[in-house]
Protein backbone atom coordinates (compact mmCIF):
# COMPACT_ATOMS: atom_id res chain seq x y z
CA UNK A 1 0.00 0.00 0.00
CA UNK A 2 1.62 3.16 -1.22
CA UNK A 3 0.61 6.63 -0.22
CA UNK A 4 1.93 9.97 -1.38
CA UNK A 5 3.53 12.31 1.12
CA UNK A 6 4.44 15.86 0.24
CA UNK A 7 6.68 17.68 2.67
CA UNK A 8 7.14 21.47 2.71
CA UNK A 9 7.12 21.75 -1.05
CA UNK A 10 7.97 25.15 -2.54
CA UNK A 11 8.24 26.42 -6.08
CA UNK A 12 8.80 29.92 -7.39
CA UNK A 13 8.82 31.06 -11.00
CA UNK A 14 10.01 34.52 -12.08
CA UNK A 15 10.10 35.58 -8.44
CA UNK A 16 6.49 34.56 -7.97
CA UNK A 17 5.78 32.01 -5.27
CA UNK A 18 3.42 29.56 -6.92
CA UNK A 19 3.54 26.73 -4.43
CA UNK A 20 4.68 27.53 -0.93
CA UNK A 21 5.40 25.19 1.94
CA UNK A 22 2.79 22.69 0.92
CA UNK A 23 2.56 19.64 3.13
CA UNK A 24 -0.04 17.02 2.36
CA UNK A 25 -0.75 13.36 2.75
CA UNK A 26 -2.63 11.29 0.22
CA UNK A 27 -3.72 7.86 1.36
CA UNK A 28 -4.34 4.81 -0.81
CA UNK A 29 -7.85 3.53 -1.32
CA UNK A 30 -9.20 7.02 -1.13
CA UNK A 31 -10.15 9.80 -3.55
CA UNK A 32 -8.67 13.08 -2.39
CA UNK A 33 -9.84 16.29 -4.04
CA UNK A 34 -7.67 19.34 -4.48
CA UNK A 35 -9.81 22.45 -4.85
CA UNK A 36 -9.20 26.17 -4.93
CA UNK A 37 -9.50 29.27 -7.10
CA UNK A 38 -7.80 29.51 -10.50
CA UNK A 39 -4.08 30.16 -10.09
CA UNK A 40 -3.99 28.63 -6.63
CA UNK A 41 -1.18 26.29 -7.69
CA UNK A 42 -3.10 23.04 -8.04
CA UNK A 43 -1.87 22.14 -11.50
CA UNK A 44 1.63 23.33 -10.60
CA UNK A 45 1.55 20.90 -7.69
CA UNK A 46 0.81 18.13 -10.20
CA UNK A 47 3.69 19.35 -12.40
CA UNK A 48 5.98 19.13 -9.38
CA UNK A 49 4.85 15.63 -8.42
CA UNK A 50 5.44 14.34 -11.97
CA UNK A 51 8.74 16.25 -12.24
CA UNK A 52 7.57 18.22 -15.22
CA UNK A 53 8.74 21.19 -13.16
CA UNK A 54 11.75 21.12 -10.86
CA UNK A 55 11.07 21.37 -7.13
CA UNK A 56 12.87 24.27 -5.43
CA UNK A 57 12.53 23.06 -1.88
CA UNK A 58 10.84 20.20 -0.11
CA UNK A 59 10.36 16.53 -0.64
CA UNK A 60 7.94 14.20 -2.38
CA UNK A 61 7.77 10.64 -1.12
CA UNK A 62 5.75 7.94 -2.82
CA UNK A 63 5.48 4.68 -0.87
CA UNK A 64 8.87 4.67 0.77
CA UNK A 65 10.80 6.17 -2.14
CA UNK A 66 11.73 9.80 -2.61
CA UNK A 67 10.73 10.86 -6.11
CA UNK A 68 11.65 14.53 -5.89
CA UNK A 69 13.13 15.75 -9.19
CA UNK A 70 13.58 12.32 -10.72
CA UNK A 71 13.42 12.39 -14.55
CA UNK A 72 9.72 12.43 -15.50
CA UNK A 73 9.72 9.00 -17.13
CA UNK A 74 11.16 7.42 -13.99
CA UNK A 75 8.49 9.06 -11.88
CA UNK A 76 5.95 7.49 -14.21
CA UNK A 77 7.68 4.12 -13.85
CA UNK A 78 7.25 4.36 -10.08
CA UNK A 79 3.53 4.29 -10.72
CA UNK A 80 2.61 7.96 -10.94
CA UNK A 81 0.15 8.49 -13.79
CA UNK A 82 -1.46 11.70 -14.85
CA UNK A 83 -4.51 12.87 -16.74
CA UNK A 84 -3.83 16.29 -18.23
CA UNK A 85 -6.17 19.23 -18.02
CA UNK A 86 -6.04 19.82 -21.76
CA UNK A 87 -6.69 16.28 -22.88
CA UNK A 88 -3.68 14.95 -24.66
CA UNK A 89 -4.05 12.07 -27.05
CA UNK A 90 -1.83 11.02 -29.91
CA UNK A 91 -4.08 12.34 -32.66
CA UNK A 92 -2.54 10.46 -35.55
CA UNK A 93 -2.63 7.13 -33.77
CA UNK A 94 -5.68 4.94 -33.43
CA UNK A 95 -7.59 4.70 -30.16
CA UNK A 96 -6.11 1.25 -29.65
CA UNK A 97 -2.54 2.41 -30.21
CA UNK A 98 -3.12 5.31 -27.84
CA UNK A 99 -3.99 2.94 -25.03
CA UNK A 100 -1.25 0.48 -25.97
CA UNK A 101 1.41 3.21 -25.69
CA UNK A 102 0.90 3.26 -21.94
CA UNK A 103 1.95 -0.40 -21.71
CA UNK A 104 5.26 -0.02 -23.54
CA UNK A 105 7.35 0.94 -20.52
CA UNK A 106 8.88 -2.47 -19.81
CA UNK A 107 10.09 -2.82 -23.44
CA UNK A 108 12.37 0.14 -23.07
CA UNK A 109 14.97 -1.13 -20.66
CA UNK A 110 17.56 -0.74 -23.41
CA UNK A 111 17.09 0.83 -26.83
CA UNK A 112 17.87 -2.45 -28.57
CA UNK A 113 15.62 -4.60 -26.39
CA UNK A 114 12.68 -4.75 -28.86
CA UNK A 115 15.01 -5.54 -31.75
CA UNK A 116 16.83 -8.45 -30.18
CA UNK A 117 14.32 -10.10 -27.88
CA UNK A 118 11.88 -11.11 -30.56
CA UNK A 119 10.54 -14.11 -28.66
CA UNK A 120 9.83 -12.21 -25.48
CA UNK A 121 8.50 -9.28 -27.47
CA UNK A 122 5.89 -11.57 -28.97
CA UNK A 123 4.43 -12.47 -25.59
CA UNK A 124 4.83 -8.89 -24.36
CA UNK A 125 2.96 -7.64 -27.42
CA UNK A 126 0.16 -10.14 -26.88
CA UNK A 127 -0.10 -9.01 -23.30
CA UNK A 128 -0.19 -5.36 -24.37
CA UNK A 129 -2.96 -6.10 -26.88
CA UNK A 130 -5.06 -7.84 -24.25
CA UNK A 131 -4.63 -5.06 -21.73
CA UNK A 132 -5.36 -2.31 -24.25
CA UNK A 133 -8.60 -4.03 -25.37
CA UNK A 134 -9.65 -4.62 -21.80
CA UNK A 135 -9.39 -0.96 -20.88
CA UNK A 136 -10.92 0.27 -24.14
CA UNK A 137 -13.87 -1.93 -23.27
CA UNK A 138 -13.88 -0.57 -19.75
CA UNK A 139 -14.56 2.96 -21.03
CA UNK A 140 -16.91 1.74 -23.77
CA UNK A 141 -14.68 2.71 -26.68
CA UNK A 142 -14.05 -0.78 -28.06
CA UNK A 143 -15.86 -0.10 -31.31
CA UNK A 144 -13.73 2.98 -31.93
CA UNK A 145 -10.47 1.08 -31.61
CA UNK A 146 -9.32 1.64 -35.19
CA UNK A 147 -10.35 5.27 -35.43
CA UNK A 148 -7.62 7.91 -35.24
CA UNK A 149 -7.85 9.56 -31.82
CA UNK A 150 -8.18 13.00 -33.37
CA UNK A 151 -11.46 11.97 -34.97
CA UNK A 152 -13.09 11.18 -31.63
CA UNK A 153 -15.25 13.71 -29.82
CA UNK A 154 -13.94 15.72 -26.89
CA UNK A 155 -15.59 13.50 -24.30
CA UNK A 156 -14.42 10.34 -26.01
CA UNK A 157 -10.86 11.66 -26.10
CA UNK A 158 -11.10 12.26 -22.39
CA UNK A 159 -12.32 8.71 -21.81
CA UNK A 160 -9.54 7.49 -24.07
CA UNK A 161 -6.98 9.34 -21.96
CA UNK A 162 -8.49 7.75 -18.86
CA UNK A 163 -8.33 4.30 -20.44
CA UNK A 164 -4.68 4.92 -21.28
CA UNK A 165 -3.99 5.92 -17.70
CA UNK A 166 -5.63 2.77 -16.39
CA UNK A 167 -3.88 0.53 -18.92
CA UNK A 168 -0.56 1.92 -17.73
CA UNK A 169 -1.20 0.23 -14.40
CA UNK A 170 -0.37 3.38 -12.46
CA UNK A 171 -1.06 3.18 -8.76
CA UNK A 172 -1.23 6.92 -8.15
CA UNK A 173 -3.64 8.74 -10.43
CA UNK A 174 -3.38 12.51 -10.74
CA UNK A 175 -6.56 13.64 -12.45
CA UNK A 176 -6.65 17.24 -13.57
CA UNK A 177 -10.31 18.18 -14.09
CA UNK A 178 -11.46 14.85 -15.48
CA UNK A 179 -15.04 16.06 -15.91
CA UNK A 180 -14.46 19.54 -17.36
CA UNK A 181 -16.16 19.99 -20.71
CA UNK A 182 -18.13 16.77 -20.49
CA UNK A 183 -21.89 16.48 -20.72
CA UNK A 184 -23.83 15.34 -17.63
CA UNK A 185 -24.16 11.76 -18.84
CA UNK A 186 -20.44 11.58 -19.55
CA UNK A 187 -19.70 13.09 -16.13
CA UNK A 188 -21.79 10.36 -14.51
CA UNK A 189 -19.84 7.78 -16.50
CA UNK A 190 -16.52 9.20 -15.36
CA UNK A 191 -17.65 9.29 -11.75
CA UNK A 192 -18.87 5.72 -11.91
CA UNK A 193 -15.52 4.85 -13.42
CA UNK A 194 -13.64 6.56 -10.60
CA UNK A 195 -15.66 4.72 -7.98
CA UNK A 196 -15.15 1.47 -9.85
CA UNK A 197 -11.38 2.03 -9.94
CA UNK A 198 -11.12 2.69 -6.25
CA UNK A 199 -13.44 -0.09 -5.12
CA UNK A 200 -11.83 -2.67 -7.40
CA UNK A 201 -8.31 -1.86 -6.31
CA UNK A 202 -7.91 -0.42 -2.84
CA UNK A 203 -4.17 0.08 -3.32
CA UNK A 204 -4.73 2.90 -5.77
CA UNK A 205 -4.43 6.50 -4.69
CA UNK A 206 -6.50 9.06 -6.57
CA UNK A 207 -5.96 12.81 -6.44
CA UNK A 208 -8.52 14.93 -8.18
CA UNK A 209 -8.31 18.59 -9.17
CA UNK A 210 -11.85 19.70 -9.72
CA UNK A 211 -13.95 22.84 -9.95
CA UNK A 212 -17.26 21.05 -10.06
CA UNK A 213 -18.35 20.87 -6.42
CA UNK A 214 -21.09 18.39 -7.23
CA UNK A 215 -18.39 15.98 -8.39
CA UNK A 216 -16.22 16.63 -5.35
CA UNK A 217 -19.14 16.10 -3.05
CA UNK A 218 -20.07 12.85 -4.71
CA UNK A 219 -16.74 11.03 -4.96
CA UNK A 220 -14.12 12.67 -2.76
CA UNK A 221 -13.43 11.36 0.73
CA UNK A 222 -11.01 14.06 1.70
CA UNK A 223 -10.40 17.61 0.46
CA UNK A 224 -7.43 19.94 0.39
CA UNK A 225 -8.32 23.55 -0.26
CA UNK A 226 -5.48 25.55 -1.85
CA UNK A 227 -5.28 29.31 -2.02
CA UNK A 228 -2.34 31.43 -3.23
CA UNK A 229 0.06 28.52 -3.27
CA UNK A 230 -0.69 27.26 0.22
CA UNK A 231 -2.93 24.63 1.69
CA UNK A 232 -5.46 26.82 3.41
CA UNK A 233 -7.74 24.16 4.73
CA UNK A 234 -8.22 20.44 4.69
CA UNK A 235 -10.43 17.75 6.07
CA UNK A 236 -13.42 15.57 5.29
CA UNK A 237 -15.36 16.71 2.25
CA UNK A 238 -18.52 17.90 3.98
CA UNK A 239 -16.39 19.59 6.60
CA UNK A 240 -14.32 21.62 4.10
CA UNK A 241 -17.20 22.48 1.79
CA UNK A 242 -19.16 23.64 4.82
CA UNK A 243 -16.41 25.93 6.06
CA UNK A 244 -17.22 29.63 6.09
CA UNK A 245 -13.89 30.83 4.71
CA UNK A 246 -13.91 28.29 1.87
CA UNK A 247 -17.43 29.26 0.97
CA UNK A 248 -16.50 32.94 0.86
CA UNK A 249 -13.19 32.75 -1.01
CA UNK A 250 -14.06 30.03 -3.42
CA UNK A 251 -17.69 29.30 -3.72
CA UNK A 252 -18.77 32.94 -3.45
CA UNK A 253 -21.55 32.12 -1.04
Amino acid at each position, binding site marked *: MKGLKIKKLSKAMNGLKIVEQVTANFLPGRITALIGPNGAGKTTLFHLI*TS*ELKVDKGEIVYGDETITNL*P*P*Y*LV*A*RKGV*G*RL*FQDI*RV*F*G*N*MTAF*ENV*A*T*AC*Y*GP*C*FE*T*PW*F*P*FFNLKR*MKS*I*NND*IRERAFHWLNFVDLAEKKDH*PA*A*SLSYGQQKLLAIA*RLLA*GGFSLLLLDEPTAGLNPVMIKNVLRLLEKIITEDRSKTVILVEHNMGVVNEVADWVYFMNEGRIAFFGRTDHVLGDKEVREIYLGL
Partner: protein
Amino acid sequence: MILLSQLLLNALVNAAIFSLLAVGFGLIYRSMRFFYIAYGAVYVIASYAVVAAMQISGFPLYLSIGAGVFLGVLAGVLMDRTVYLPLERSGATPGVLLIASLGLYILAVNAVALIFGNEVKILSRGIEPSFSLGPLVITRMQVIQFLVGWILVTGFWLIIRKNTLMKGIWAMGETPNLVTALGLPCGLMRLLVFALSSVFAGVASLVTALDVGIDPHVGMHALLIGAVAVIVGGVDVYWGWIGGASLLALLQGMAVWQFSSRWNDLITFGILIITLLFRPQGLFSPRKRREER
Protein backbone atom coordinates in the same frame (compact mmCIF):
# COMPACT_ATOMS: atom_id res chain seq x y z
CA MET B 1 12.98 5.17 -76.44
CA ILE B 2 16.31 3.71 -75.42
CA LEU B 3 17.29 7.06 -73.90
CA LEU B 4 14.06 7.17 -71.96
CA SER B 5 14.51 3.63 -70.66
CA GLN B 6 18.08 4.41 -69.68
CA LEU B 7 16.91 7.51 -67.80
CA LEU B 8 14.21 5.50 -66.06
CA LEU B 9 16.82 2.96 -65.01
CA ASN B 10 19.01 5.75 -63.66
CA ALA B 11 15.99 7.21 -61.87
CA LEU B 12 15.40 3.87 -60.19
CA VAL B 13 18.98 3.91 -58.91
CA ASN B 14 18.66 7.52 -57.79
CA ALA B 15 15.38 6.72 -56.11
CA ALA B 16 17.24 4.21 -53.94
CA ILE B 17 19.69 6.87 -52.76
CA PHE B 18 16.99 9.50 -52.35
CA SER B 19 14.97 7.02 -50.29
CA LEU B 20 17.90 6.51 -47.95
CA LEU B 21 18.13 10.28 -47.51
CA ALA B 22 14.39 10.56 -46.97
CA VAL B 23 14.27 7.82 -44.34
CA GLY B 24 17.16 9.41 -42.44
CA PHE B 25 15.52 12.81 -42.47
CA GLY B 26 12.01 11.47 -41.90
CA LEU B 27 13.05 9.57 -38.78
CA ILE B 28 14.03 12.81 -37.08
CA TYR B 29 11.28 14.94 -38.55
CA ARG B 30 8.49 12.56 -37.60
CA SER B 31 9.73 11.78 -34.11
CA MET B 32 10.91 15.25 -33.09
CA ARG B 33 9.18 17.64 -35.47
CA PHE B 34 12.13 19.81 -36.05
CA PHE B 35 13.86 20.69 -39.29
CA TYR B 36 17.21 18.97 -38.98
CA ILE B 37 19.51 21.03 -41.20
CA ALA B 38 22.65 19.54 -39.70
CA TYR B 39 21.57 16.30 -41.38
CA GLY B 40 23.63 17.69 -44.28
CA ALA B 41 26.62 17.92 -41.97
CA VAL B 42 26.32 14.27 -40.98
CA TYR B 43 26.18 13.42 -44.69
CA VAL B 44 29.42 15.32 -45.36
CA ILE B 45 31.22 14.10 -42.24
CA ALA B 46 30.59 10.44 -43.06
CA SER B 47 32.23 10.67 -46.48
CA TYR B 48 35.13 12.79 -45.33
CA ALA B 49 35.77 10.29 -42.56
CA VAL B 50 36.27 7.74 -45.33
CA VAL B 51 38.56 10.14 -47.17
CA ALA B 52 40.61 10.58 -43.99
CA ALA B 53 40.69 6.87 -43.23
CA MET B 54 41.70 5.82 -46.75
CA GLN B 55 43.98 8.55 -47.95
CA ILE B 56 45.60 9.67 -44.72
CA SER B 57 45.59 6.59 -42.51
CA GLY B 58 45.74 4.14 -45.39
CA PHE B 59 42.91 1.91 -44.18
CA PRO B 60 41.51 -0.57 -46.68
CA LEU B 61 38.18 0.38 -48.27
CA TYR B 62 35.78 -1.79 -46.25
CA LEU B 63 37.33 -0.68 -42.93
CA SER B 64 37.11 2.94 -44.05
CA ILE B 65 33.46 2.54 -44.89
CA GLY B 66 32.80 1.20 -41.41
CA ALA B 67 34.73 4.10 -39.93
CA GLY B 68 32.76 6.56 -42.08
CA VAL B 69 29.36 5.31 -40.96
CA PHE B 70 30.55 5.11 -37.35
CA LEU B 71 31.85 8.69 -37.35
CA GLY B 72 28.65 9.88 -39.00
CA VAL B 73 26.62 8.26 -36.20
CA LEU B 74 28.94 9.73 -33.61
CA ALA B 75 28.56 13.20 -35.14
CA GLY B 76 24.76 12.94 -35.22
CA VAL B 77 24.46 11.72 -31.65
CA LEU B 78 26.97 14.27 -30.35
CA MET B 79 25.12 17.13 -32.02
CA ASP B 80 21.95 16.04 -30.25
CA ARG B 81 23.56 15.58 -26.85
CA THR B 82 25.58 18.80 -26.91
CA VAL B 83 23.20 21.18 -28.66
CA TYR B 84 19.60 20.10 -29.34
CA LEU B 85 18.86 18.23 -26.14
CA PRO B 86 20.15 20.98 -23.81
CA LEU B 87 18.32 23.58 -25.91
CA GLU B 88 15.10 21.61 -25.78
CA ARG B 89 15.42 21.05 -22.03
CA SER B 90 15.68 24.80 -21.56
CA GLY B 91 12.45 25.22 -23.47
CA ALA B 92 13.72 26.34 -26.87
CA THR B 93 11.14 26.73 -29.65
CA PRO B 94 11.44 24.84 -32.96
CA GLY B 95 12.68 28.11 -34.52
CA VAL B 96 15.64 28.22 -32.16
CA LEU B 97 16.45 24.60 -32.89
CA LEU B 98 16.34 25.34 -36.61
CA ILE B 99 18.82 28.18 -36.29
CA ALA B 100 21.06 26.10 -34.03
CA SER B 101 20.94 23.31 -36.57
CA LEU B 102 21.86 25.70 -39.38
CA GLY B 103 24.75 26.94 -37.25
CA LEU B 104 25.98 23.40 -36.70
CA TYR B 105 25.76 22.71 -40.41
CA ILE B 106 27.81 25.78 -41.34
CA LEU B 107 30.33 25.03 -38.61
CA ALA B 108 30.82 21.44 -39.75
CA VAL B 109 31.04 22.24 -43.45
CA ASN B 110 33.58 24.99 -42.91
CA ALA B 111 35.65 22.83 -40.61
CA VAL B 112 35.70 20.09 -43.26
CA ALA B 113 36.59 22.63 -45.97
CA LEU B 114 39.41 24.03 -43.85
CA ILE B 115 40.91 20.62 -43.23
CA PHE B 116 40.38 18.97 -46.59
CA GLY B 117 40.00 21.89 -49.01
CA ASN B 118 37.06 22.88 -51.16
CA GLU B 119 37.76 20.72 -54.18
CA VAL B 120 36.06 17.45 -54.99
CA LYS B 121 37.70 14.41 -53.41
CA ILE B 122 37.58 11.27 -55.50
CA LEU B 123 37.28 8.06 -53.50
CA SER B 124 37.57 5.44 -56.22
CA ARG B 125 39.88 5.82 -59.18
CA GLY B 126 39.70 4.24 -62.58
CA ILE B 127 36.73 3.45 -64.76
CA GLU B 128 33.85 1.57 -63.17
CA PRO B 129 33.11 -1.74 -64.83
CA SER B 130 29.65 -1.72 -66.32
CA PHE B 131 27.07 -4.26 -67.41
CA SER B 132 24.71 -4.06 -70.32
CA LEU B 133 21.07 -5.06 -70.13
CA GLY B 134 20.22 -5.20 -73.81
CA PRO B 135 20.76 -1.65 -75.02
CA LEU B 136 20.88 -0.25 -71.47
CA VAL B 137 24.05 0.24 -69.47
CA ILE B 138 24.46 0.15 -65.72
CA THR B 139 27.73 0.56 -63.83
CA ARG B 140 28.82 -1.69 -60.99
CA MET B 141 28.54 1.22 -58.58
CA GLN B 142 24.97 1.86 -59.68
CA VAL B 143 24.12 -1.78 -59.01
CA ILE B 144 25.60 -1.40 -55.55
CA GLN B 145 23.65 1.82 -54.95
CA PHE B 146 20.45 0.20 -56.11
CA LEU B 147 20.85 -2.89 -53.97
CA VAL B 148 22.13 -1.14 -50.83
CA GLY B 149 19.42 1.50 -51.00
CA TRP B 150 16.42 -0.70 -51.60
CA ILE B 151 17.57 -3.49 -49.27
CA LEU B 152 18.18 -1.06 -46.40
CA VAL B 153 14.95 0.82 -46.89
CA THR B 154 12.82 -2.32 -47.19
CA GLY B 155 14.67 -4.20 -44.46
CA PHE B 156 14.31 -1.31 -42.05
CA TRP B 157 10.60 -1.18 -42.75
CA LEU B 158 10.26 -4.90 -42.05
CA ILE B 159 12.02 -4.42 -38.72
CA ILE B 160 10.11 -1.37 -37.53
CA ARG B 161 6.72 -2.23 -39.05
CA LYS B 162 5.34 -3.78 -35.90
CA ASN B 163 8.00 -2.66 -33.50
CA THR B 164 6.77 -1.37 -30.19
CA LEU B 165 9.76 0.89 -29.78
CA MET B 166 9.09 2.67 -33.06
CA LYS B 167 5.47 3.25 -32.07
CA GLY B 168 6.72 4.96 -28.94
CA ILE B 169 9.10 6.98 -31.07
CA TRP B 170 6.36 8.13 -33.45
CA ALA B 171 4.22 9.01 -30.43
CA MET B 172 7.08 11.14 -29.16
CA GLY B 173 6.72 13.29 -32.28
CA GLU B 174 3.13 14.07 -31.43
CA THR B 175 3.35 15.01 -27.76
CA PRO B 176 6.73 14.46 -26.12
CA ASN B 177 5.54 15.40 -22.60
CA LEU B 178 2.85 12.81 -22.77
CA VAL B 179 5.31 10.10 -23.75
CA THR B 180 7.46 10.73 -20.69
CA ALA B 181 4.35 10.89 -18.52
CA LEU B 182 3.60 7.34 -19.68
CA GLY B 183 7.04 6.18 -18.56
CA LEU B 184 8.83 6.03 -21.90
CA PRO B 185 12.41 7.35 -21.87
CA CYS B 186 12.59 10.16 -24.41
CA GLY B 187 16.35 10.53 -24.02
CA LEU B 188 16.98 6.94 -25.00
CA MET B 189 14.57 7.11 -27.91
CA ARG B 190 16.22 10.29 -29.20
CA LEU B 191 19.60 8.63 -29.03
CA LEU B 192 18.35 5.76 -31.14
CA VAL B 193 16.63 8.03 -33.66
CA PHE B 194 19.71 10.18 -34.16
CA ALA B 195 21.94 7.13 -34.51
CA LEU B 196 19.63 5.44 -37.04
CA SER B 197 19.15 8.64 -39.00
CA SER B 198 22.91 9.10 -39.19
CA VAL B 199 23.35 5.56 -40.48
CA PHE B 200 21.01 6.33 -43.37
CA ALA B 201 22.72 9.67 -44.10
CA GLY B 202 26.13 8.02 -43.90
CA VAL B 203 25.29 5.12 -46.19
CA ALA B 204 23.65 7.42 -48.75
CA SER B 205 26.69 9.66 -48.61
CA LEU B 206 29.16 6.82 -49.03
CA VAL B 207 27.50 5.11 -51.97
CA THR B 208 27.31 8.48 -53.71
CA ALA B 209 30.83 9.57 -52.83
CA LEU B 210 32.31 6.27 -54.02
CA ASP B 211 30.69 6.97 -57.38
CA VAL B 212 31.14 10.68 -58.04
CA GLY B 213 33.37 11.89 -55.19
CA ILE B 214 32.55 14.36 -52.45
CA ASP B 215 33.00 18.07 -51.78
CA PRO B 216 32.17 19.87 -48.53
CA HIS B 217 29.08 21.60 -49.89
CA VAL B 218 26.97 18.70 -51.14
CA GLY B 219 25.37 18.26 -47.71
CA MET B 220 22.78 20.95 -48.35
CA HIS B 221 21.71 19.24 -51.56
CA ALA B 222 21.32 15.93 -49.72
CA LEU B 223 19.34 17.59 -46.95
CA LEU B 224 16.96 19.20 -49.42
CA ILE B 225 16.31 15.94 -51.25
CA GLY B 226 15.55 14.17 -47.97
CA ALA B 227 13.41 16.97 -46.58
CA VAL B 228 11.40 17.56 -49.76
CA ALA B 229 10.81 13.82 -50.23
CA VAL B 230 9.47 13.52 -46.67
CA ILE B 231 7.24 16.59 -46.88
CA VAL B 232 5.95 15.75 -50.36
CA GLY B 233 5.31 12.11 -49.49
CA GLY B 234 3.70 12.81 -46.10
CA VAL B 235 5.45 13.00 -42.75
CA ASP B 236 3.48 10.26 -41.01
CA VAL B 237 3.76 7.55 -43.64
CA TYR B 238 6.98 5.59 -44.05
CA TRP B 239 6.24 4.54 -47.63
CA GLY B 240 5.20 8.11 -48.33
CA TRP B 241 8.82 9.16 -47.79
CA ILE B 242 9.95 6.50 -50.25
CA GLY B 243 7.19 7.54 -52.66
CA GLY B 244 8.27 11.17 -52.41
CA ALA B 245 11.89 10.22 -52.99
CA SER B 246 11.01 8.08 -56.00
CA LEU B 247 8.86 10.82 -57.47
CA LEU B 248 11.72 13.29 -57.13
CA ALA B 249 14.15 10.90 -58.79
CA LEU B 250 11.72 10.20 -61.60
CA LEU B 251 10.93 13.86 -62.29
CA GLN B 252 14.60 14.78 -62.18
CA GLY B 253 15.26 12.02 -64.70
CA MET B 254 12.53 13.41 -66.92
CA ALA B 255 14.00 16.89 -66.59
CA VAL B 256 17.34 15.57 -67.82
CA TRP B 257 15.55 14.00 -70.74
CA GLN B 258 13.59 17.10 -71.78
CA PHE B 259 15.83 19.98 -70.66
CA SER B 260 19.08 19.55 -68.76
CA SER B 261 20.19 18.48 -65.30
CA ARG B 262 20.53 22.11 -64.32
CA TRP B 263 16.76 22.14 -63.88
CA ASN B 264 16.91 19.59 -61.07
CA ASP B 265 16.69 22.03 -58.16
CA LEU B 266 13.81 23.81 -59.82
CA ILE B 267 12.00 20.48 -60.09
CA THR B 268 12.68 19.71 -56.43
CA PHE B 269 11.26 22.99 -55.19
CA GLY B 270 8.51 23.14 -57.76
CA ILE B 271 7.08 19.85 -56.58
CA LEU B 272 7.45 20.96 -52.95
CA ILE B 273 5.49 24.13 -53.53
CA ILE B 274 2.80 22.44 -55.59
CA THR B 275 2.32 19.78 -52.91
CA LEU B 276 2.18 22.31 -50.10
CA LEU B 277 -0.40 24.30 -52.00
CA PHE B 278 -2.73 21.51 -53.01
CA ARG B 279 -2.11 18.66 -50.59
CA PRO B 280 -0.26 20.00 -47.53
CA GLN B 281 -0.52 16.71 -45.63
CA GLY B 282 1.59 15.02 -48.33
CA LEU B 283 0.73 12.98 -51.39
CA PHE B 284 0.54 9.64 -49.60
CA SER B 285 -1.09 10.67 -46.31
CA PRO B 286 -4.75 9.97 -45.79
CA ARG B 287 -6.92 13.05 -45.97
CA LYS B 288 -7.74 14.56 -42.60
CA ARG B 289 -10.98 15.86 -41.25
CA ARG B 290 -11.16 19.62 -40.99
CA GLU B 291 -11.12 19.70 -37.20
CA GLU B 292 -7.99 17.58 -37.04
CA ARG B 293 -5.80 20.07 -38.84
